[in-house]
């Protein structure tokens, strides 16, 4: 009886909770994308795309480079996640900040950093740039879960004779498997739909479906081909989701909520976490360091001119000041977080099927961009030039990731706590506010940081939106780097370096 009531209660709660997120996504995502599809999809074009050898090659390249990128990211990211969620040591916070920061950064910054080091374009630089961006995803999604694994279970396994690797396979992995698969899927999708990195590091021969969609739609004006490619891309991603769903284990074990535990370093592992972190940081930080280096060194000598110019407020050749650029970016980021986090929380609290909310991952940014311009162009919703549309789009894009980041925390709240609260006289809503929310606080903070991060670095879908006078950081950096004149470029690198340093600083605290 109690179980039936609990379930019934949960289900009705589900429907009401989901109204806001569903309406939001419908208006700002489903409708624009469907509009694009309706207007520009031709089945004939689709079949000619499928039969085109070069385009099939593009699809194949998109696939295999995404798989390899994902594997490399996991290879670097999982051990680093282990080290950071199990050990605290001096410098751990900074290391975490470095590993997590690149997610914010616009592709042009990271790619330029990689290019400065490798001095060549091609597959290896692309893979490297992908790892730099995506280690952060692994850390953010697997990290909280891993730190919730009860250490005593590992102790028990050790006393039963299991060496560390078997302990991992038999005892730890079942608890983090879902999170790892979730993270891996996301990394795959980000690498598969990679655009900025491919644009700069791909050279002529390396193209992904996403960059081809953009090229066809924008450079060559073939919107029908672009839409056909977008459909192909969406089909592939949907397939990936379906496959992953089969791999997922049955509903996750309800773990006891434990605070992240600081484990005393064990004798056998004393150096290992440090080495792992050092390697991860070296891989991720070197392009960033290269950018900072570029901002400080001209003609072989150190010069602070670029930084001085930056802090004097004016940006050479641009008509905006540093202050307005930073303010604009921050305002957009905060607005995006205010929209995204509450909606994500609503979704994460229910056990609704994730399909609808994963859609922004499935559909290419270019398609969304086109959809936005052609949809919101007549009153009463002629919103396409409205400034607030930008943070809204950021929120749409951030939603799938933020939901996934909140899930481990919302799932780990045992219903016994709510029962306890109920017996103490609190209504379901009050229980939720006083019990759930206070437990979720750290996760909510992280989620806010994450959605702000996504907003700060977003460049793809919103590049289709016009704005007047609201230049964001990625745009300012791209503009500075896109003009001749040593002082201008140095300012661009300095701004990028500033963004890196601030991000690392903020992420170390988050």
């Amino acid at each position, binding site marked *: 009886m109690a179980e039936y009531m609990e379930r019934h209660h949960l289900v009705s709660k589900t429907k009401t909770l989901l109204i806001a997120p569903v309406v939001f996504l419908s208006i700002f995502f489903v409708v624009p994308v469907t509009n694009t599809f309706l207007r520009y999809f031709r089945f004939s074009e689709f079949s000619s795309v499928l039969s085109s050898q070069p385009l099939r090659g593009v699809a194949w390249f998109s696939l295999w480079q995404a798989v390899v990128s994902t594997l490399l990211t996991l290879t670097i990211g999982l051990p680093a996640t282990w080290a950071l969620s199990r050990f605290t040591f001096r410098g751990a916070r900074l290391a975490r900040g470095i590993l997590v920061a690149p997610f914010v950064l616009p592709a042009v910054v990271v790619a330029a950093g990689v290019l400065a080091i490798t001095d060549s374009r091609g597959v290896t630089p692309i893979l490297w740039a992908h790892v730099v961006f995506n280690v952060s995803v692994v850390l953010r999604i697997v990290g909280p879960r891993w730190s919730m694994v009860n250490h005593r279970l590992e102790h028990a396994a050790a006393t*039963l*004779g299991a060496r560390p690797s078997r302990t991992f396979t*038999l005892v730890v992995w079942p608890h983090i498997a879902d999170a790892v698969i979730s993270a891996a899927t996301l990394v795959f999708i980000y690498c598969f739909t990679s655009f900025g990195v491919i644009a700069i590091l791909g050279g002529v021969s390396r193209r992904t479906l996403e960059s081809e969609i953009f090229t066809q739609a924008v450079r060559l004006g073939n919107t029908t081909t672009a839409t056909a490619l977008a459909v192909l891309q969406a089909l592939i991603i949907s397939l990936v989701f379906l496959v992953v769903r089969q791999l997922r284990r049955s509903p996750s074990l309800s773990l006891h909520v434990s605070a992240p535990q600081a484990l005393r370093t*064990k004798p056998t592992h004393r150096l290992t976490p440090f080495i792992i972190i050092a390697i991860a940081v070296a891989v991720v930080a070197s392009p960033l360091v290269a950018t900072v280096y570029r901002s400080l060194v001209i003609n072989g000598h150190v010069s602070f001119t670029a930084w001085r110019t930056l802090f004097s407020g004016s940006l050479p050749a641009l008509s905006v000041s540093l202050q307005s650029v930073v303010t604009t970016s921050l305002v957009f980021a905060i607005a995006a977080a205010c929209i995204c986090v509450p909606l994500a929380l609503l979704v994460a609290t229910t056990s609704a099927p994730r399909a609808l909310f994963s859609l922004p991952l499935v559909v290419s940014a270019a398609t969304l961009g086109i959809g936005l311009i052609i949809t919101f162009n007549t009153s009463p919703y002629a919103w396409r030039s409205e400034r607030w549309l930008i943070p809204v789009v950021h929120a749409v894009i951030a939603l799938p990731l933020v939901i996934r980041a909140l899930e481990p925390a919302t799932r780990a709240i045992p219903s016994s706590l709510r029962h306890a609260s109920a017996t103490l006289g609190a209504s379901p809503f009050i229980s939720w506010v006083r019990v759930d929310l206070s437990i979720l606080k750290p996760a909510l903070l992280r989620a806010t940081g994450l959605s702000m991060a996504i907003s700060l670095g977003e460049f793809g879908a919103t590049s289709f939106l016009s704005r007047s006078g609201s230049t964001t950081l990625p745009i300012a950096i791209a503009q500075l780097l896109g003009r001749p004149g040593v002082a201008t470029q140095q300012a661009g690198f300095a701004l990028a370096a500033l963004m890196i340093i601030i991000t690392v600083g903020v992420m170390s605290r988050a």
Partner: protein
Amino acid sequence: MLKVSNLSVVFDGITILDKISFTVPTGSTLAVVGPSGVGKSTLLHAICGLVRVSNGSVFVNETDISAIPAHKRGIGLVSQTGDLFPNMTVSQNIEFGLRIKHKTKADRTARVQELLEMINLSSLAHRNVMQLSGGEVRRIALARALAPEPRVLLLDEPFSGLDEATHEQLSKDVFQLLSDLSITSIIVTHEIIDAHRCDEVVTLKK
């Protein structure tokens, strides 16, 4: 036979254990008593290798095992909270140590059955561990620790948090089991009754 010699554990500058020495003859039970926070659990963790020892050694049957990693020491631990693996059934928990030793399925099943009978819980073989009562959890944790036939068994407050009747029954059963199997064991407890059921008692002072 277990011998602890001048064992010290220092962590972050704080001395938790300071030159502890005692011997436990083979097959006998030792009770470790003392006030809360004196380091009884840490002592057990140090003996089975889960905590780094700053000074001193641990000997099992004359062999110094201080440098051997925890999973190779053959010392079983039953923790205060049982720590059963939530993703496995009762049987799977108990046979864990046997899987590690690559015993055959037949061997494992036989041994699990044997142990379940010893602790009088044969009916729970395929039960999910999240649905067990406190007493059941302790028994199964004990069975799990006993399955790989450890040379030494450590029990950390095995009877705490139980009602008097369950406590009494469990205590009787456990001591009977330890005596039947003649396992060298150390029991951390703050119950005088249980301490007196052991062969020897060691008191830790701050």
